[in-house]
């Protein structure tokens, strides 16, 4: 019992005074219409499981249906560590599942095949490219994608962007230098989904950094950030990945570690939570964390860009929940968008309402995710944008899905902030080394 109480963060549940301030902020409380699917309800159930008044099975659905968007933590007046409570709950649920030997779910397959290493993600990227170019159904069969049919993976696939050829991928180097003296040396965290599915955006990110006068390294040994593992209760795996990244980036000896995915960034800045305070790895993680920056932060800080091409377009901005609620970054993306000449920014009514993508939530809980997306799209359509700007691959795909659902593909698109910025042609100022 002792270990269950510890794992499930029983102590932390006492920080919740059940004031209910988080209720209006929680997307699942709004769409699922039950306190069971609210932050306060979830925390209460975690507490009850620790007190043996409810079973882990009772906790499963409410926890699996939580987006992990952390909007509740931003509004919570007593600073409840919901992120840690959620992760603890997931771990306990996952432990029970693997002990009971129940056959693995979708997540297992995804983790084993897609997210575990850079190689796999590259494979995914390449295969997606091949699939799109050739239209070969065989691809789907080979990866037993048919297993995902009820999970609507095909709907998500439809919105995956055009993929660069394997050749283009192979051309990437690991070290870029600006023209003049470098303002600082940064390492770029490529992220697995970003690199697999949005390779172009990653290239554009490097380009922006270099044009800002930064020297950019791409440490080869880097791996997945481990966010999706942690969100699925695979804390041990997540910890291993963290160690790998800490080592890889230490070797690079840089001033900053830059990423362009709000979800990954949120994981990276919490690496120290994976280790016991004061331990050797905790200290190493702390040093790593102190260098992590979102690309928008670093671009605002170094002020190295001047946009030359006006973009006469009405846009709206959908922030990544993890960037807002975990990393606490809200203004840099907006500052950058406003710098683009010609642009009209119309802000959403409910900026902090999750889009429903939430890692692989939209794959695993498709219907619930779409309910949330529909709320989001109503807000989006109210601003009548031509483009929706996002800062995270999951959100980007989800917004594309939302545009499809609204039947608005002719009039609206979704782009990563980085792509928009590069389109505005910031002054060039670099060469390959």
């Amino acid at each position, binding site marked *: 019992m002792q270990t269950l109480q510890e794992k499930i963060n029983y102590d932390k549940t*006492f*920080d919740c*005074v*059940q*004031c*209910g*301030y988080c*209720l*209006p902020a929680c997307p699942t409380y709004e769409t699922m*219409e*039950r*306190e*069971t699917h*609210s932050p306060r*309800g979830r925390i*209460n*159930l975690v507490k*009850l499981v620790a007190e043996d*008044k*409810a079973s882990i099975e*009772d*906790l499963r*659905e*409410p926890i699996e249906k939580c987006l992990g968007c952390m909007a509740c933590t931003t509004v919570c*007046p*007593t*600073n409840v560590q919901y992120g840690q409570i959620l992760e603890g709950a997931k771990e306990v649920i996952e432990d029970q599942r693997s002990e009971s030997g129940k056959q693995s779910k979708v997540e297992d397959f995804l983790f084993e095949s897609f997210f575990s290493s850079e190689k796999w993600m590259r494979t995914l990227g390449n295969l997606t490219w091949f699939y799109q170019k050739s239209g070969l159904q065989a691809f789907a069969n080979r990866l037993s994608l048919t297993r995902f049919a009820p999970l609507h993976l095909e709907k998500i696939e439809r919105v995956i962007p055009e993929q660069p050829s394997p050749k283009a991928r192979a051309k990437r180097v690991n070290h870029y230098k600006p023209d003049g003296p470098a303002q600082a040396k940064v390492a770029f965290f490529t992220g697995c989904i970003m690199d697999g599915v949005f390779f172009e955006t990653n290239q554009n990110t490097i380009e922006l950094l270099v044009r800002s006068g930064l020297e950019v390294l791409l440490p080869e040994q880097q791996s997945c950030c481990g966010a999706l593992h942690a969100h699925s209760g695979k804390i041990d795996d997540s910890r291993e990945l963290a160690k790998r990244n800490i080592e890889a980036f230490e070797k690079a000896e840089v001033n900053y570690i830059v990423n362009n995915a709000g979800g990954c960034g949120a994981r990276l800045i919490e690496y120290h939570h994976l280790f016991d305070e004061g331990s050797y790895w905790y200290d190493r993680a702390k040093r790593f964390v102190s260098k992590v920056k979102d690309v928008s932060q670093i671009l605002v800080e170094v002020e190295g860009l001047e946009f030359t091409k006006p973009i006469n377009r009405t846009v709206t901005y959908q922030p990544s929940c993890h960037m807002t609620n975990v990393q606490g970054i809200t203004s840099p993306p907006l500052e950058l968008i406003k710098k683009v000449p010609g642009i009209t920014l119309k802000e959403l009514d409910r900026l902090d309402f999750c889009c429903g993508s939430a890692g692989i939530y939209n794959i695993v809980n498709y219907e619930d995710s779409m309910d949330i997306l529909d709320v989001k799209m109503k807000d989006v359509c109210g601003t009548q944008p031509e483009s929706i700007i996002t800062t995270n691959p999951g959100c980007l795909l989800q917004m594309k899905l939302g545009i499809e659902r609204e039947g608005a593909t002719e009039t609206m698109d979704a782009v990563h902030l980085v792509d928009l910025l590069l389109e505005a042609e910031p002054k060039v100022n670099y060469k390959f080394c």
Partner: protein
Amino acid sequence: MNEWLQILNNHIPDQRILTDLADRYSYSFDASFGEHLPDVVVQAKSKEEVVHVMHIANRYKVPVYPRGQGTCLSGGPLPVHGGIVLDLSQWPKKIDLNVEDLTVNVSPSVLTANINKEAEKYRLMYAPDPSSAHVATIGGNLAENSGGPRGLKYGVTKDHVLGLELVTPEGEVIRTGGQTIKNVTGYDLTKLIVGSEGTLGVITEATLKLLPKPRAAQTIMISFDEVRTAGLAISQVLTSGILPSKMEIMDNASIRAVESFQPAGLPVDAAAIVIIELDGHPQTLEIETELVREIMSKIGATQIVIPNTKEEANKIWQSRKQVSPAIAKIKPTKVSEDATVPRSKIPDMMDRLKEIKETYNVELVVFGHAGDGNLHPNILCDQRDKEEMRRVEQAVEAIFEAAIDLGGTLSGEHGIGTMKAPFMENELGTVGVEMMKRIKDSWDPNHIMNPGKIFAERGQKLVLTDD
């Protein structure tokens, strides 16, 4: 399965009749103390559904507990005797403004702050402003007769209700009051229902009064090196012909808590600060601000801050808002009281609170709405420490006693619920409580409407632990 549970299903869809353990536990609490598992949670979305539930409940003698968003601080929605939690928070939200009449019709699930937000679009306001207005439902506010800082000038919920629609415990629908400010037809049932804490029926609609929104507001923050002087200053302002919209007080412990939580530049050496908001026409405000300044410097205030911009003013109010979360950092469990005394007795009450703090050796912090005598003594403790909780229970009883001694009341805002029920007689006397019970008996002959609230059960005592 219970017969009554099956019949419930006749008019209410499955997905809104919750019987899973996880769901039932999710409606077993509110923002106060105690955990009680209901047999079922029913989520009503229309008057007809409520009528259906009440018919069944009355026939089968099953208790029904109305619930809004469960932010109650006195145990009001807790299903203490099992039965049905009637969740009203998912009711379709309706805010129908009648701008020309300065009234608004609302459904019970509407969040109070949203009523004001709608009204402001037409330069009107819904005045009651409990600090939980952005979370709590208007149904809960009506049932608790909630109030906030603006109560000083504008009164509390009951002062803004023109009419109600109610489903009685026997499942009948009645309308009380109407759409007019003046209305003296029959007993004033509206006022009886407001503040009845869900014990007389389920509120299904309300007609509320709106006011013109004041043109401008001015904040003033004053520091004192003695709490008594602060109390005196408050009385002097109120007798000088000025009626501020808000007058809040923070004691030294709350000032320090805020400063170490989120520094805002508050004077940490002050014994107390008073934060005033004046509202009205900008020219009037200038004159009144000057008057307040004169009164304060004459009486010996140590510092007077008059912010020039909205941002500066917001910063001051923000720090007042931070008191609750800031003091929650002292210890995990927060027992928030709302004993209220006549305004002139604030200094005496402060003295009594200091004594209580020492006698029972508890972490006691005081802040609140000084302008209307509504203080919030908060005790910070740890629910897991049983011995400490016993002392806290005694301290709370002593606070109630002090308030009543000074001619005040057990509760200015949070209601009686389960928590204060054992103390009602001390304030109202045996006959006072008996008359209320008679009203309750005739409205709810089968005692199914939110039982266990307001009226103490035999041997009931204040309990601040969950088990």
